[in-house]
């Protein structure tokens, strides 16, 4: 079969020693970058890329794939261990992953995250191989109205399943939307609430917000409570997921992989959306939704798989339309162009060996990540054994430097501290942070697409309904919104709420 020959071709290329070396370097660098909060893959790639000019393009691409996946996985590590997300997509992993760590189950959490990511990565690579062109067509069908409706649906889904009060979660979301308007307006150029501070022109940064809300706030909350960490009691034996964990995680991983892959096709912060959606779906389908947030492995397996699959799906617009959807993939594009390859729809047919080499390299990157990280789990657990009085200043230090080194801006560090204060207070007042983060991440996109849609439709909100895909999303959103008022659904939700409230605190 044609595909098998291609795979063989790709594999032949990829398994050469030098490529294996580059892959390893990439994965290592990527993991390091992912673990250190705030340091992005782009800078890492930029530093390593010049070393690859003398070698074949495939080697460069293999390294890029390694960095990309490494960064994703590294972010999960810190989420689970110290409740600090390495990047936005790892925010969800914090919810249950960290709880698992606190119960002494950091090893299984990390392990499932690694395996889940591997499986998801594989699924997305296979998907890429088989269905790239038709999927690209599907992606094209998404225009401003569809994006807006999709995001609206995503929000409602997430908030509907909030473990606390819906009203409060919605409020946090709207607050986040308002915060996301700070900065120079993308369409008209008007400064909004920047008070003349140049750093604020491109908005309240995502990294300072996450670092503050999750990193700083968490540490300070712990400092207040003199929390004793029970991780010290972890036995070395419990490093890997047990059979029950596997059974519980199997379907979430599968679902997460497919979900993430499809979401990844769409431009924008796909891994984040994929992770949030997966969590929401797993919680909804689960037989024990009230346990989410206390350390259930499904809450790690699903989202981790989803965000990894999304990174794979993100390659599709590049290969089919020649359009990169984020800066990391743009670098890949650059690597192509260096070798005279014109980005565009014809890329797969014109340069099959490059395409298949890339595909296989992504697979290799995933595999190597697994190999590299599993043994490291034991090492990471040791980190947790450091007494908290010494550990927490180091964590704070990483947050500070991480944010500062983004743009060498004291303003952003100050923002992070501000978010830290806010996050700390929010915990006290029982407000959830995830909706806020989600709003900051997708707020600008939502606003842009809303305004674009209205301009295109010349002021008519009907555009959201006349476009079929958008209409579907709106319909589901409305259904979710209205359902509390439908008696029998409302009764079920009340039962759920009672269970939750009983277990709250």
């Amino acid at each position, binding site marked *: 079969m044609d595909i098998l020959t291609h795979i063989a071709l790709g594999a032949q290329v990829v398994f050469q020693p030098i490529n294996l070396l580059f892959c390893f370097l990439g994965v290592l660098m990527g993991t390091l970058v992912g673990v250190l909060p705030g340091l992005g893959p782009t800078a890492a790639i930029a530093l390593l890329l010049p070393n690859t000019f003398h070698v074949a393009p495939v080697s460069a691409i293999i390294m890029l794939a390694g960095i990309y996946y490494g960064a994703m996985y590294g972010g999960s590590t810190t989420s689970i261990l110290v409740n600090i997300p390495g990047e936005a997509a790892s925010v969800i992993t914090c919810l249950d992953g960290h709880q698992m760590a606190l119960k002494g189950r950091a090893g299984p959490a990390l392990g499932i995250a690694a395996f889940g990511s591997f499986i998801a990565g594989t699924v997305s690579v296979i998907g890429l191989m088989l269905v790239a062109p038709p999927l690209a067509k599907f992606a094209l069908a998404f225009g401003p109205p569809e994006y807006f409706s999709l995001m609206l649906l995503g929000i409602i889904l997430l908030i509907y399943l909030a473990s606390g009060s819906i*009203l409060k979660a919605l*409020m946090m979301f709207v607050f986040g*939307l*308002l915060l996301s308007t700070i900065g120079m307006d993308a369409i008209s150029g008007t400064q909004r609430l920047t008070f003349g501070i140049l750093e604020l022109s491109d908005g309240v940064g995502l990294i300072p917000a996450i670092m503050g809300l999750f990193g700083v706030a968490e540490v*300070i909350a712990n*400092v*207040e409570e003199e929390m004793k960490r029970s991780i010290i009691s972890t036995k070395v034996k419990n490093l890997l997921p047990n059979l029950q964990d596997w059974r519980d995680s199997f379907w979430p991983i599968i679902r997460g992989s497919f979900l993430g892959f499809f979401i990844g096709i769409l431009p924008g912060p796909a891994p984040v959306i994929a992770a949030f959606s997966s969590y929401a779906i797993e919680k909804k389908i689960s037989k024990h939704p009230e346990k989410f947030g206390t350390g259930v492995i499904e809450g790690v397996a699903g989202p981790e798989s989803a965000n990894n699959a999304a990174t794979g799906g993100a390659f599709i617009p590049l290969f089919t339309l020649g359009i990169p959807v984020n800066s990391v993939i743009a670098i890949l594009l650059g690597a192509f162009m260096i070798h005279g390859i014109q980005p565009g729809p014809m890329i797969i047919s014109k340069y099959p060996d490059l395409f298949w080499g890339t595909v296989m390299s992504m697979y290799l990157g995933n595999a190597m990540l697994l190999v590299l990280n599993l043994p490291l789990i034991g090492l990471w657990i040791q980190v947790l054994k450091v007494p908290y009085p010494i550990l927490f200043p180091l964590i704070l230090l990483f947050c*500070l*430097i991480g944010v500062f080194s983004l743009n060498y801006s004291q303003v952003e560090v100050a923002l992070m501290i501000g978010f*830290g204060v806010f996050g700390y207070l929010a915990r006290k007042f029982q407000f959830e942070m995830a909706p806020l983060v989600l709003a900051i991440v997708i707020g600008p996109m939502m606003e842009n697409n809303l305004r674009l849609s209205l301009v295109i439709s010349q002021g008519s909100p009907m555009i959201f309904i006349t476009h079929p895909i958008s209409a579907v999303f709106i319909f589901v959103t409305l259904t979710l919104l209205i359902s509390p008022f439908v008696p029998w659904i409302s009764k079920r939700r009340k039962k759920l709420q009672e269970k939750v409230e009983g277990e709250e605190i």
Partner: protein
Amino acid sequence: MEKTQSHYNRIAAIFFLIVGIFFFLYARSVEIGSWNEPGPGFLPFWAGLTLSAMSIALLLGSYGKKAWAVRPSFFPKGDSWKRVLLTFLSLIAYNLLLNPLGFAFTTFLFLAFLVKFIFPQTWRRTLLVAVLGSVMARLLFINFLETQLPKGFLGF
């Protein structure tokens, strides 16, 4: 001193109400635009309005029966607020001192301060952590990752 959840909700509601009204009013100073050409004030206006409405709903709800769950008081363990405050202040200090004092030295001070004064450790441990921490950080960020961190007047 015990407070109920409703009390907290009320305070929060008022906070968000103020925020909502602020944005709502602010939106008018940047162009709100029209439905067929939404301007920069469009979203702030509607979102601000929505937030204000939700805050009022929360406020009203806090007088209802359900919200009487008792919540622990704000600072359950007496003088833990001192630790919280000190930690925040040290963060702010780090931010301000980073440029004048340079990365390595500021890091050293920061680590030493927190280790010694929040959950007091011995001086030996403090110094060990502070020195090792700042040296490792310097190696990692400046040498390995080539980040441009301030050198400060001490030159390192």
